[in-house]
Structures are given as C-alpha cells and as structure tokens.
C-alpha cells in the first residue's frame, strides 16, 4: 500500500519584478510504500524542499496531484497522521522545549493526560531531557534539531516527512538520528527523508529516489540501484619500490601514494589478486583488500553528468 503518492507534481515560481519563471519542480511521481524508509536525495536546489512543501500543503502545485494516506494533500485531514520536520529553523524561540512540544501537541488536540506522559518521554528520547525548561533561544543548533524531531513525533504519526533531519548535527548526533529513524521503521512507520549526504541515506534507506533539476532521474531499491556486483577493489600495500608502483599503476583505475603506503583500485577481483601476488613476490606487505560496491555518490555523479549532457 502506498502511503505517500504523487503524480506529475510541478511547481513554477515567479520571482522578482519581471516575474521571471523558476521551474523548481518539473515532474515528480512518488510512490512510497508503507513501512519503508524512503530517501529523497539530490544536490542543493534540486527541488526536494519544494516537493515536500507540496506534500504538506504549504504550497500549491502548479500541476499534478499528491495524496497522503489516500487523501489529497489539499485536504488538511491528509495531515492527520503526519509528522513533519521542516528544513532549517522553525522555532518559537520564546518557548521552552517542553512548552514548544505542548503547543504542537495541543494543535493536534492531544488530551492533557497523553501530553503529560509523552512530552518528557520524547525529550528524553531525543536526548534533551535536561533542557526541557530552557527557552529554545538558548538551545544549540543540535538541540534545536532534536527538539524539532521531537515535535514531528509528538502526535505518534504513522507517516514522517523529514527535510534534512541530520543537518547541523555532529557525528554522534547523526548516528542518534539514524538510529531513531530505524527504530521508527521497526515500529511500522513510514519515513520519507531528504538529504544531500549520501552516506546517511545509504546506511538507512530501503528505497531511494534521486532528484536533479526538479526531476527524478533514478529511483528504486538501494540494492537495485547500486547493483550487487562489485564496482571495484581497493588494495593498500606498503614497502614497495617506486618502480613497482609505476608498474602496478598501469593496470589500476586509480593509484595514490602516500608516504610508504600505496593505494590501488582495480576494476575486478582477478586484477587485484594479480597485483597482490606481484607485491608479495617483491617482499611488499598487503595492508588491506576491500571490494567496493558502487556508491550512491557515484550514482548521483553519473546522473548529474548524464543530465548535463542531455541539457548541453
């Protein structure tokens, strides 16, 4: 069953005095399955936030339609089971963390008994229980992001739309958010998350769509997109001569030397094995040998290049 669906979404902004047209989103179809973590990935300005604003009813599509839980997004009731984390800051700075959550909980008509229980628990869950009674004005960037996440969860939604939930977080914070998103999926919730940081998406998403210039250019299961086959093998060795380095480099797709260490990348395992044998017979030492899958980054870079070619 699809929880979020969009068909032919398009948004054209008119800006400036001359009403110049900006095509922020050209054509986007979405079909987000229940219980999945759906990564919506694209570089800056690709149209991710604009899409999300159309899904959450904040802007009207120029063309196309979208539904959440089967209801058209023009109907406010489509947002009944939705938790939304907008991009960037969006806080009532004069409220404390607890007051902020209470305000949003009451906008969802949650009864007092539920609020009393859920608010402290949520603040703990996102790791800012100690700052419950501190005004948000005094929060650090990471704390803001966390209280924002707590806000999206306050109504115990079954669909979450998170616009860059990891922006502004340190590595520990990113891990916390990743774990949080995974635990939401384990609870059977559907998470639609945008990012331009591919590593994050690769770690958690089941399904990925890559958006470029307002259009989805690749879309599918992560395994499907990246392919299961090995995209290359990285070999790191030590203690070889310059001459041998030059020799090994000829067959490699990439070669880097750093002090006494050398890194080679080969297109397939057979070539890598051969290089390792050569190194061993010359009394060099093998430090590591890692088969590498194609990364989301390469996929995106390839997509970008294809788009450029198409345009140019």
């Amino acid at each position, binding site marked *: 069953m699809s929880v979020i669906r969009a068909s032919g979404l398009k948004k054209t*902004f008119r800006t400036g005095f001359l009403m110049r047209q900006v095509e922020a989103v050209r054509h986007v179809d979405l079909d987000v399955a229940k219980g999945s973590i759906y990564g919506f990935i694209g570089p800056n300005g690709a149209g991710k936030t604009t899409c999300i604003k159309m899904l959450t*009813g904040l802007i009207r599509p120029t063309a196309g339609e979208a539904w959440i839980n089967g209801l058209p997004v023009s109907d406010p009731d489509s947002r009944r089971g939705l938790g939304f984390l907008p991009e960037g800051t969006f*806080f009532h700075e004069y409220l404390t963390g607890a007051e902020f959550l209470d305000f949003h909980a009451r906008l969802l008509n949650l009864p007092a008994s539920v609020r009393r229980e859920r608010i402290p628990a949520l603040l703990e869950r996102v790791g800012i229980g100690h700052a419950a009674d501190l005004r948000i004005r005094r929060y650090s960037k990471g704390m803001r992001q966390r209280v924002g996440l707590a806000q999206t969860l306050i109504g115990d939604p079954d669909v979450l739309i998170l616009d860059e939930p990891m922006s502004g977080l340190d590595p520990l914070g990113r891990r916390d958010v990743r774990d949080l998103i995974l635990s939401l999926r384990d609870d059977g919730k559907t998470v639609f998350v945008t990012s331009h940081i591919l590593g994050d998406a690769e770690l958690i998403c089941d399904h990925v769509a890559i958006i470029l210039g307002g259009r989805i250019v690749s879309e599918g299961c992560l395994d499907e997109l990246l392919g299961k086959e090995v995209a290359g093998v990285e070999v790191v060795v030590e203690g070889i001569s310059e001459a041998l380095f030059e020799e090994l480099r000829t067959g490699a797709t990439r070669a880097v030397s750093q002090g006494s260490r050398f890194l080679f990348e080969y297109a397939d395992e057979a070539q890598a094995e051969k290089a390792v044998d050569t190194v061993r017979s010359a009394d060099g030492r093998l430090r590591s040998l890692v088969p590498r899958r194609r990364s989301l980054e390469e996929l995106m870079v390839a997509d970008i290049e294809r788009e450029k070619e198409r345009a140019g």
Partner: protein
Amino acid sequence: MNSLQRIWVLAQNTYREAIRDKLLYNLLLFAALMIVSSIVLAKLHLGYDERIYRDVGLAAIAMFGAMIAIFVGINLVYREISQKTVHAMLAKPVRRWEFILGKYLGLVSLLVIEIGIMSGFFLAVLVYKGSPWEWAMVWAIGFIFLELALITAVAIFFSSFTTPYLAGMFTVALWIIGHLLADVRDFGLQQGSEGIRPLTEALYWSLPNLDRLDIKAAAADGNAIDAARMAGAALYAVCYSGVLLMGGMLLFQRRDFK
C-alpha cells in the same frame, strides 16, 4: 470542537509571544509616561484641569493602543511566516483560517490587557486629582477597544497577503484616513463637483469609519452620549472587523509558504 480548541491554542500562544516581547513593554511605558505628563500639562492650564486629563489620557490610550495593535499585530503575524514557524503548524490538520482567527483573538486579548493597564493608570490619575467619577469615561474606553479591535483586523487583513512594511503602511494610512472620513465626505459635498463627489462618497462608505467609534471628545466634555448611536457604532465595528477577517482568511488560504 477540535477546531475551537486549536483556535484557542493559537490565540493563547500569540498572547504568550507578545507578553514575552520587549516591544510591548516599551510601548506601554511610553503610554504611561504620556498619561503622567498630562498632569504636568494640566498644571499649565489652570482651570481646565479635568478636560485636559481626560483628553490627553484618552488620546494616549487610543494612540498607543493603535501603535501596539498595528506594530505588534503585524510583527507577530510576519514573524510566524518569516521564521517559518508557521510551517510546522500548518503541516498539521490545522486549517489556515484557524490560524488567522487564533492570531486575531490572541491579539484582541492582548488589547484587553493593555487597555486595562493604561486605563488603570488613567483612572488613577483622575481619582488622584479628585475628578468626579463618570461612566462616560468607561464607555469611551470601551469604544477605544472597539476601534483597536477593528485596527487589528485591518492589520491582520494586510498581513495575510503582503509584506510587513506594506501592511504597516496601509494600516497606518487607514487608521489616519479612518479618522478623517467625515471631513473627506464634507469636502466632496461642499465642492459639489460631479467628478469628485462619487469618489469621496465611495471612500466614506467603504473605508473603516473610525470617527463613528470616537466618543472621546463627547466623553471628555461630560456630554451625554446617545445609546442608539453607540449600539449602531458597536455593531458597525464588529461587522467591519468580521468582514476584514474573512477577507484575510480567504487571502491567506491562497498563499504559498516559501
């Protein structure tokens, strides 16, 4: 029911934001100073004491009330949009008209408090000066409230679709013109020119006629005020505010949050 609850929450939060804002206190402080300065002014006009206290006091309440209504009102709506706090709110089953109504009611409850404080000052000065108690003063203050509630509706109306600067300019302009409409109409009637009269008549009947709500002068003079006229004026203020709010809701409904 859910809707009423949300409007109440939105109103409460608006009120809370204003109460935690410095601008409000600065304006209130100024108003208090104005009222106190009326004592000093009165000393220079011996014999006309009472008239001056009443005039200056009521004028201060109306004037600073209007400033608070316009600037705090516009600022509070604008802030929700520019700081994007509105995004998380409207991405809930909250209706946009509920947001507008909640903001309005929050601002009106703020007006009640602030007029209450200023009036407290004002009446204290009157009592201190041994002025006889007159209910006309209370009526005058009540009508100042109606005028400010109408101004707030104007501010919300403009804020619902334009920038805070334009909204501020339009609202201040309407506030001033609203007090001059009778003169504008007289001008049209006296000129008698065919070209100008339809225009002045149109302005007179369409713009908010704040003079109708102004019973300050009559009250300060201690004249009796016609009950039927007051009832008509009150009804006018309520209906006009209602129409403006509905217009604001319609325009806000169409708005894109960028």
